[in-house]
């Protein structure tokens, strides 16, 4: 096969061209790969397009990679000129074969900045590279840079001072809606890329931490996205019980939901309400709403613990499940004390202004089940009248379950309930590893208990 310098030159240029033509011919390519093939087959391109998959025969890589690599370095050293189109082609080829080559991503950053390359196209290249190299740190890092660019562009567009006449304002409005749709599409696409990469490589820390980053930067305060993520990763963790990264992601989601419920409860309730009915944006933040959004978060703790116990029972002996349990228990303790703070405040309020029925011993009654938080907001009773919340105290075990309609305050894990869980595990199961983890958890609980008392 072509070994002399010139022949390699011709061959490689043809291959680079073949790759860019393949993308032109099929814009839906969704996976790349290397086809094991030690020898070249005469007169056939090493680039294979099958369905939506792009394959490179392995024999040509040893010619291709050093060639495009050198060419790009010469360009960087200003020894060799390349036009923009050639740069796009060369960096694509290079990054599909070796996505951790930072210089190539940097060249693409410059192309993006001068507008010669669209951010979407660049994200697409990264997505393809991740199908072959799902961990590639440089690809994830570059992605975050591109996403930040998109966010900056979006905020620049939305902050453009609107013209004074009404028509322009309307156009402005349409544009901002288009913009937010575009951002939410980008967000969903990122979630898809992350879950794909997580499926291709076990414990793919890079993919999961990217997913967290995306939520922090693109979905800040958007409760619905966090809830959706929580439900969409549920099945995934159920069939990846030893993958700590997935559980860590859920811990992050629950913690964020808890923080957001404490900080912006009205938004919390109304965003949950939008799926069921309309809630006026100017809804006043009542303490009751605060409690409502907060108890719904506590409900999450309850569900997560149930899931955890369930999985432990089905699949004994996985440490990731035990460490997840620890973290949820810890978060739950935090949540509980925050809720208690809220409740005692509501108690004072109720006693000072609203206590009309003269009940001397206000029991724990909340007027709605968690599943329908909307109605409480939409119902007639919320206009100034005293609510049915007469105050409640979590610490009182008798009052805990006295609810008028539905269950509101879930059974949260407590130190005693966790201890009895451990005892039941130790009694029922003889899986040696599982027992060891259970004993370690018991020890940990003891240190937590010591800290609390």
């Amino acid at each position, binding site marked *: 096969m072509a070994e002399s310098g010139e022949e390699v030159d011709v061959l490689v240029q043809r291959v680079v061209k073949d790759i860019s033509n393949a993308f032109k011919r099929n814009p839906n390519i969704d*996976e790349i*790969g*290397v*086809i*094991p*093939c*030690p020898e070249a087959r005469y007169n056939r391109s090493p680039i294979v397009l*099958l369905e939506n*998959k792009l*394959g490179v025969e*392995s024999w040509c890589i040893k010619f291709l990679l050093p060639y495009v690599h050198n060419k790009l370095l010469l360009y960087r050293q200003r020894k060799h000129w390349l036009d923009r189109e050639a740069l796009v082609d060369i960096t694509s080829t290079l990054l599909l074969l070796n996505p951790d080559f930072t210089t190539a991503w940097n060249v693409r950053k410059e192309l993006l900045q001068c507008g010669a390359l669209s951010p979407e196209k660049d994200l697409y290249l990264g997505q393809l590279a991740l*199908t*072959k190299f799902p961990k590639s740190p440089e690809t994830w890092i570059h992605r975050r840079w591109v996403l930040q660019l998109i966010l900056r562009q979006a905020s620049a567009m939305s902050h453009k001072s609107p013209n004074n006449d009404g028509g322009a304002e309307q156009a402005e409005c349409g544009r901002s809606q288009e913009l937010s749709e575009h951002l939410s599409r980008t967000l969903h696409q990122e979630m898809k890329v992350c879950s794909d990469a997580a*499926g*291709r490589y*076990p414990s793919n820390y890079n993919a999961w931490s990217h997913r967290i980053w995306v939520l922090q930067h693109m979905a800040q305060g958007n409760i619905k996205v966090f809830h959706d993520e929580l439900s969409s990763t549920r*099945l995934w963790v*159920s*069939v*990846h*019980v*030893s993958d700590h990264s997935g559980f860590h992601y859920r811990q992050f989601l629950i913690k964020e939901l808890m923080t957001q419920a404490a900080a912006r409860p009205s938004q919390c309730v109304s965003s949950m309400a939008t799926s069921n009915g309309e809630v006026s944006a100017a809804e006043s933040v009542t303490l009751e709403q605060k409690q409502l959004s907060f108890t719904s978060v506590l409900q999450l703790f309850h569900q997560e613990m149930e899931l955890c116990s369930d999985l432990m*029972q*089905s*699949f*004994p002996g*996985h440490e990731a499940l035990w460490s997840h349990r620890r973290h949820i228990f810890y978060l739950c303790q935090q949540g509980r004390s925050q809720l208690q703070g809220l409740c005692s405040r509501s108690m004072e309020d109720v006693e000072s202004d609203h206590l009309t029925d003269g009940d001397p011993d206000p029991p724990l009654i909340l007027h709605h089940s968690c599943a329908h938080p909307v109605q409480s907001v939409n119902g007639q009773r919320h206009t100034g009248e005293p609510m049915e919340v007469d105050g409640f105290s979590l610490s009182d075990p008798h009052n805990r379950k006295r609810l008028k309609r539905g269950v509101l305050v879930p059974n949260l894990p407590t130190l005693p309930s966790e201890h009895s869980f451990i005892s039941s595990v130790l009694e029922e*199961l*003889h899986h040696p590893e599982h027992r060891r983890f259970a004993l370690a958890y018991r020890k940990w609980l003891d240190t937590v208990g010591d800290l609390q008392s």
Partner: protein
Amino acid sequence: MKLYSLSVLHKGATKANLLKAAYDLSSFNFFQRSSLQEFMTFTSALIVERSSQGSRASIKEQEYMCHVYVRNDNLSAVVIADIEYPQRVCFTLLDKVLEEFSRQVDSIDWPTGKPETINYKALDIYLSKYQNPREADAMTKVQAELDETKVILHHTMESLLERGEKLDDLVAKSEHLGTQSKAFYKTIVSCSEIHNLPS
């Protein structure tokens, strides 16, 4: 937690005869799937050949677990899973599949049947259903403990081989593997040798 292949074979005097197989290789790179499928066939046959009649064994090979059940009548089944997948569920599945297979396919066809001619279509269904063991197997929670003492555990494929035998040679000689798969095997081996170099 993943099942990659499920196959039914007949253990002959020297060779194992593949009767039917199902594969789920969706989690692998598209261009490696055909080679991996050949390797799974090759491995399943090799394991059955090297396991004795009326035995159950689990063989760990890198990040895969191969579970095999060879019945006293030489009808055998192999499931290849990842390490996370519960072993007991695998053996329950193997029992079930062989039970059903032996009822539906006449034993005259076992020694010579081919995947194309054997009429048994449930393997694909089982393979996809058992991807989520909690849904497929009601017993998951009960933990009906499999008598683990009866399952032989091998920590590598090599321990199945006879003295002086080498996996590389078996790969080179195998009729289950095409040239592309053999090339693929060589690249894997050379990669893992590089990784295992003492630093």
